[in-house]
């Protein structure tokens, strides 16, 4: 009982929610394996919508609830359930839970599913100790109510949150500092809602910049001068690296929950536009590149690929910018469409809609930057899009729940250029041939490598390196989560070498998850985040790429919950 109360208090911090997810690794039922622990950790992370006021319709046929019960149910729903079942409960990874379905089942059956889970993948929230019987009963009644709708977020709301901290006219006209800007790292400090800008040459912190919560990615402007970051709470911050002490120059919120941001990269449009994609409301927003002034909002609600049914909340996943055309490549998750959004005339917007596969998530370019490879994660496929021609090239079947991040490009000794992805749901690393002239290997999985285990998030190499680095931060085995595997690209049949990165950091107690290998500009260092909880010490570990030995540990009381980092030059030029 006490544990449950404590857990309820901990609900507000996702890191603890993630830690609690470790409890599922003790299977209470034989045979419930189809959903792996890493997946649950990944999907069941909290949503910022938990604390939003929402409109609620009352259905007299649903079991009665007080306002307080409803609010508690809503909070638990958005912290535990929405990641899989959707904001409007239309279903995504999890089954749809609309009232027509849930009322037909009834409270008692729903309680069994919530408490004990199901072989189809529902976690056993009750027997795992995360929800007590009263909460299970509450949730069984809650999901029979009409799903409350979070508010929309249009131009008026965006304008109200938009701030130009330093107008373009008042910004420096030349670089005012001595930093080697190309080698700066932007490191997400997840729980404090900040990014740390770190000088890659001296390994010293340049500044800690206030941002949204749990910054998902950092992207650079085409010029490399500005850094754009987006938090899970849909707050976009724009940082000017030319300032004496680089800091925010503009900010805006583009919704209530979001994951992606990028900038116009085509020649003639350098630093002209920025774009951000939202989970809620389901839309993308094109902004002025130098001030973040919102210019155009486009909804992504619409029909799914294949069965062509209406989906009310197709979330915007990864966005990248084409180097071949004035286009953004916008990936819409639930409808399974890749949108080529042409920004040459945003008042007469042309969008090419490419049918891929449902549940598009993350991805990156091949080495030529002509092909964009994106994971349709719950479909276990990689969609290959030709951004020059604006066409789907191929859907490639891979293993369970690919999670490439941006993927990794290198030349395979036998099959030529390949792009690699790891998986959340398995230990495999898929190598996909990307040379369209090679009929034997183009757009096929030419080889699977065996990594340490599932729960991989990022995989990385560099044109100057012969190493392929693979993290496994969401693996339930602490030893695997706290280390990284490295393959020799010239000897891919050899098993990887496992390096105890977290041990090298020399920290005390903590989850110490090793996350996101990232190269410096020269391609001779690999940086890792060693991520522990908010009240514990974390660190960054820098490894010498050639010797694979420890080069530096960056520790600082301000480095709290680092989860990932982006090197300016490599991100600006899509080198991965």
């Amino acid at each position, binding site marked *: 009982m006490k544990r449950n109360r404590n857990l309820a208090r901990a609900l507000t911090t996702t890191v603890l929610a993630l830690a609690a997810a470790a409890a599922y690794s003790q299977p209470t039922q034989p045979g419930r394996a189809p959903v792996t622990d890493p997946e649950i950790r990944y999907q069941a992370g909290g949503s910022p919508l938990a604390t939003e006021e929402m409109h609620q319709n009352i259905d007299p046929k649903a079991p009665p609830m007080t306002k307080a019960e409803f609010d508690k149910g809503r909070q638990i729903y958005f912290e535990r359930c929405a990641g899989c079942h959707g904001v409007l409960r239309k279903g995504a990874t999890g089954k749809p839970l609309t009232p027509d379905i849930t009322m037909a*089942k009834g409270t008692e059956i729903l309680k069994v599913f919530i408490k*004990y889970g*199901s072989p189809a993948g529902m976690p056993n929230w009750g027997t795992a100790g995360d929800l007590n019987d009263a909460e299970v009963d509450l949730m069984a009644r809650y999901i029979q109510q009409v799903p409350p709708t979070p508010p929309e977020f249009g131009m008026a709301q965006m304008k109200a949150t938009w701030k130009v901290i330093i107008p373009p006219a008042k910004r420096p006209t030349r670089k005012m500092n001595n930093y080697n800007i190309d080698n700066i790292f932007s490191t997400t400090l997840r729980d404090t809602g900040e990014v740390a800008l770190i000088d890659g040459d001296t390994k010293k912190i340049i500044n800690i910049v206030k941002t949204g919560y749990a910054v998902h990615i950092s992207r650079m402007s085409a010029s490399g001068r500005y850094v754009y970051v987006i938090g899970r709470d849909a707050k976009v911050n724009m940082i000017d690296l030319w300032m004496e002490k680089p800091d925010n120059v503009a900010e805006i919120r583009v919704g209530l929950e979001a994951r992606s941001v990028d900038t116009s990269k085509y020649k003639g449009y350098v630093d002209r536009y920025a774009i951000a994609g939202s989970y809620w409301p389901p839309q993308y927003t094109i902004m002025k590149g130098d001030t973040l002034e919102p210019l155009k909002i486009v909804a992504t609600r619409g029909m799914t690929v294949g069965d062509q049914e209406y989906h009310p909340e197709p979330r915007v996943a990864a966005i990248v910018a084409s180097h071949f055309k004035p286009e953004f490549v916008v990936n819409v998750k639930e409808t399974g469409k890749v949108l080529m959004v042409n920004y040459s005339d945003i008042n007469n917007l042309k969008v090419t809609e490419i049918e891929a596969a449902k549940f598009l998530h993350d991805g990156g370019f091949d080495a030529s930057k002509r092909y964009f490879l994106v994971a349709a994660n719950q479909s276990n496929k990689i969609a290959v899009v030709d951004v020059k021609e604006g066409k789907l090239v191929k859907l490639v079947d891979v293993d369970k729940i690919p999670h490439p991040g941006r993927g990794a490009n290198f030349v395979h000794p036998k099959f030529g250029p390949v792009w690699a992805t790891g998986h959340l749901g398995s230990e495999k690393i898929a190598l996909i041939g990307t040379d369209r002239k090679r009929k034997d290997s183009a757009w096929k999985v030419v080889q699977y490598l065996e990594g340490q285990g599932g729960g991989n998030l990022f995989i990385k190499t560099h044109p100057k390196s012969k190493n392929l680095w693979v993290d496994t931060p969401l693996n339930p085995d602490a030893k695997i989560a706290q280390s990284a595997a490295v393959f020799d690209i010239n000897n891919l049949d050899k098993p990887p070498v496992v390096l105890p990165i977290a041990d090298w950091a020399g920290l005390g107690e903590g989850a110490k998850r090793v996350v996101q290998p990232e190269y410096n500009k020269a391609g001779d260092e690999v940086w890792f985040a060693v991520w522990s909880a908010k009240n514990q010490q974390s660190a960054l570990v820098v490894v010498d790429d050639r010797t694979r030995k420890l080069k530096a540990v960056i520790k600082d009381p301000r480095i709290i919950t680092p989860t990932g980092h982006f090197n300016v030059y490599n991100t600006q030029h899509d080198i991965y």
Partner: protein
Amino acid sequence: MKTRILIAFTAGMLLAGPALADETLAKKYNCLACHQIDKKGVGPAYKEIAKKYKGQAGIEVKLAQKVKKGGSGVWGQIPMPPNAAAPDGDIKKLVEWILKMG
């Protein structure tokens, strides 16, 4: 369109005889939310139940009670909720239908 096909399908099942008709009962009372015919789901497979109990004296009455009042412990810790609202006649039909699968 879909509904019409479903109605035709259901009608077809009713005409096909009692075995299929009781599958519609199983649907009606949400049994299939947890049970499948030949695969273990949240609850045990019907074929497994039939195999376990087939030929035991008085088993129909005992199982009908279990369906009505719910239970747990025989197949694992996951409880079966009670089905107090289902009429005895329907429960009897369902139990006979399940036992015939063994």
